[in-house]
Every structure is written in C-alpha cells, then in structure tokens.
C-alpha cells in the first residue's frame, strides 16, 4: 500500500469468538483506582 501503513493485525473480532476465558487480571489491580483502563492489559490466554 502506498497511502497507508497498517500497524497491527486487527484481531479484535476473532478474539470475540475465542475470548472470554477470564484469566486476565481485573483492571483496578495495577495502578488505576479511579478510572477504568482495560486496553493496556495483557491477554493471559495463549490461544488469542
């Protein structure tokens, strides 16, 4: 592509099918205690 660079594999939709195992941390466990920050967490399911 000449006009665009795509940065990631964009796997959100497939993760909806395979996801939801629940092994990830709850979001407030790290540093935030007053805001909900989810997207900086790691997925803990090796299949995704």
């Amino acid at each position, binding site marked *: 592509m000449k006009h665009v660079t795509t940065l990631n594999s964009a796997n959100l939709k497939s993760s909806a099918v395979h996801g939801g195992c629940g092994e990830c*941390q709850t979001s407030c466990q790290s540093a935030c205690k*007053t805001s909900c920050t989810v997207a900086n*967490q*790691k997925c803990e399911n090796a299949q995704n």
Partner: protein
Amino acid sequence: MIHKFKQLGMNIVMDVYSGAVHIADDVMYDMLDCIFEPFTPESECPEYVKQAMGDKYSDEEIDECYAEICSLYRAGQLFSEDTYEQFAKNWNKGSIVKALCLHIAHDCNLRCKYCFADTGEFHGGRSLMSAETGKKAIDFVIANSGNRRNIEIDYFGGEPTMNFEAVKEITDYAREQGEKHGKNFRFTITTNGILLNDDIMKYINENMSNVVLSIDGTKETNDRVRRRVDGSGSYDAIVPKFQKLAESRNQNNYYVRGTFTAYNLDFAKDVLHLADLGFKQTSVEPVVAPYDEDYALKPEHVDKICAEYDKLCEEYVKRYDEGRGFNFFHFMVDLDQGPCAIKRLSGCGAGHEYLAVAPSGDIYPCHQFVGNEDYKMGNVYDGTLNEGIRSEFERSNVYTKEKCKDCFAKFYCSGGCSANAYNFNGDINKPYELGCEFQKKRLECAIAIEAHKKLG
C-alpha cells in the same frame, strides 16, 4: 466506525470494530472525510468523492488511494461492522470472583485533601481489618472463584502498612489455602510510604507481585495536598524510600501513582519530575471529585488538560528516542496482544469479578463503593452475595451504556468506571463524561506513541 486524528505529526486512523490502526498519508486522510458509512466499495472512485477532494491531489493519486481503501475494507480493517452486539444481547458471563481488594486499614497517617476514602475512614470511622476477617475473605474468594487458578488480592486502605501484621498473616494463610485448593494467589499493596522501612520493603519484594506507591509529583504539588496529620508535607520522607524500593525491584512490577487536581493542571511537569527522580513506572491520574470542591476538575479545564497530555506525549517519545524512556500507565496500550473483545466489552469486573472487603468483612462492588450502604453486597462471615447488585454489575457492558454507542474509545475503556458513573450520574450505566474526555485524549496519545515506536 472509524476515528481519525493527528498526533505526533502522524495521520492516525482507527477502525473501531476490528481494532486496526492505520497511519495514512494526506491523500487518504482527506479522502476518509469524503466517504461515509456504510461503505460500499465500487470499481472506480465515485465522482462525488473526486469532487469533494477538489484539485489538491492528482486523479492518479485519488484513484490509487480509493483502491487502497477498498482493499482495507475487504480485509476487514476499515469500516468494519459492529458484530459485538450479539455477544452483548446474549450476555451471560457466569462470572466468578477473581480478585479482592482488602481494606486492611480504614485509617491513614496522611490527610490528603482529595481522598475519596474520606482520609481513610470511608465514612464509617477509623478501623483495622482483623487477620481473622482477612482469612474469611480468603476462604470466600476460594469458594467463589470456580476453576480460575490465579487470584488477585490487593491490600488497600486507608494505609495498609498501619496494619501490616494482619497483611502478613493473611498472606501466609492465602498461600497455605491456595496450595490446598489449587489456587495461585498474587498480591498487590498500595502505600503512601510513610511507614515503609527495610523490613516492610523486604517483605513486599518477597511477597507482592506489584506495589503501588502514592506520590503526586514535585514537592510543591505533593505537599500541597498529601499532608501529614500535623499539616506538614510527605514528599521528603517518602521519595528516598520509594526510590530505594523501585531500584530493589529492578524498576519493574511497581508504580509510583499520583493524582492531579485543579491545583496542578500543568501536571506534565509532575509526571516528568517522577521520571527525573528515576522512576520508570509512573501513573498520574485525574482526581474525581464533586464540582463544588476547589481542587475538583471541571468541564472548563478539559482543553488545558488535553493540551497537557499532548505536551507529555511529545516529551515521552523524545525521551524514548533518546534512550531514557519511562512508562506512563495511561499511555500504555497493547495493539497486538491486548485483551480480547469480551474483556473489552465487560470492563473492570467490579461487582462480580472484583469485590472490595471492608474491615468489618462487609462486601462492596469495589473500593470506591465501600461505605455506601445501598451497595453493601454481603459479608465474608456469612459468605453470601446480594444477587441483585451482583447481576446489575455483571450485566453492565459497553452496550448497556447509551453514551458509549458512538464513541471510538469504547473498546479501550470498556465504558469507564462504574463508581464514577454512579457518583456523578446515579447510574453505573451513565458514564462520567469528564472522565470520557480525558480517556479519549489519552487513548489518542497512547496510540500515537505505539505508532511512533513501531515506525521508528
């Protein structure tokens, strides 16, 4: 849905439903203003698009660019459709409890002006959690965690080091019970640092997977708000101890964590000060407070705060490029291995996966609800949970929040903090709008930073 913005000199395009992030040149960035959803690819660039583009670009560039947009669409990376609503409609998480926030001490040796915990009391008087209550909480989470192996325990307060013997006893008990029941406990502690000493640091390093160290930034910023009972500041006492602890953890698995208020709208300097002190893991967050407090952030502060995030973003990548980078919690985003869509739909887990336990053993949806009698869910001594409250939180997701419908950030914040929504709008499904504005700006910065790192 797409969202486009300029940050760090790049044209950034997010495709919300696929999670794709693109860096576009000017031709594509402008063309995306001329194309509307739902998008239907055509064999040639439609005339109305060409007309809307004017004479800024050649016909060849326009045709080429349109073809690339069609390719991205076909690859599911642009104008992708919302296919998540079906998950939200059939929402049946069957949640298990996987984390507890233990309020080890409803007491504090600081009197921070903005404390949501009412300077440690949580509106219920000063008290300490007994080791016995803590052990009951451990029994409770083991009994309610289903097949999940990893369980998180967060020692919180008030100030948990004011009741550190209980912390030790509960930790020992959790490890012992964990072995019996096939559970792996991971511990976190949040402290203001006043009582930290070598023994406590050693214990923390040996037992806690994460430690959150509270400090707001420069001495002036910190000591204006984070004061001792006698009114004196805390900065001088805590900084050397925090530096020592951070180094002893190899600058990993900890955060120095501050709060900014209307008193320091120029908070980028406070974040950079923490980095200058040598801290590699930082977090400084906006205070959440009723508008009638003089330190509260208000809608008229949004522009200034967003400009401050921009400033911090620029300095952040500059330091990264110079090999002296640091992490700022709210600028961290994982574009490749981030949480799955289900996690992004459901959010922090408060009220069903994550619960807070007060010194009395009373259970609340999260630390921010502690002391709110309407949201008391049960007690660890009887082991029951109020199903009405639990299911209210479990059902809540991005699609139960009308305000999130058209928001590009919804899969990054998951609809925001339930406690903030409740405190400002009386409903966990009505997000706190000021928080949304900050979240959106931080997300733009975070994505730009990742783009900068990937593209060099």
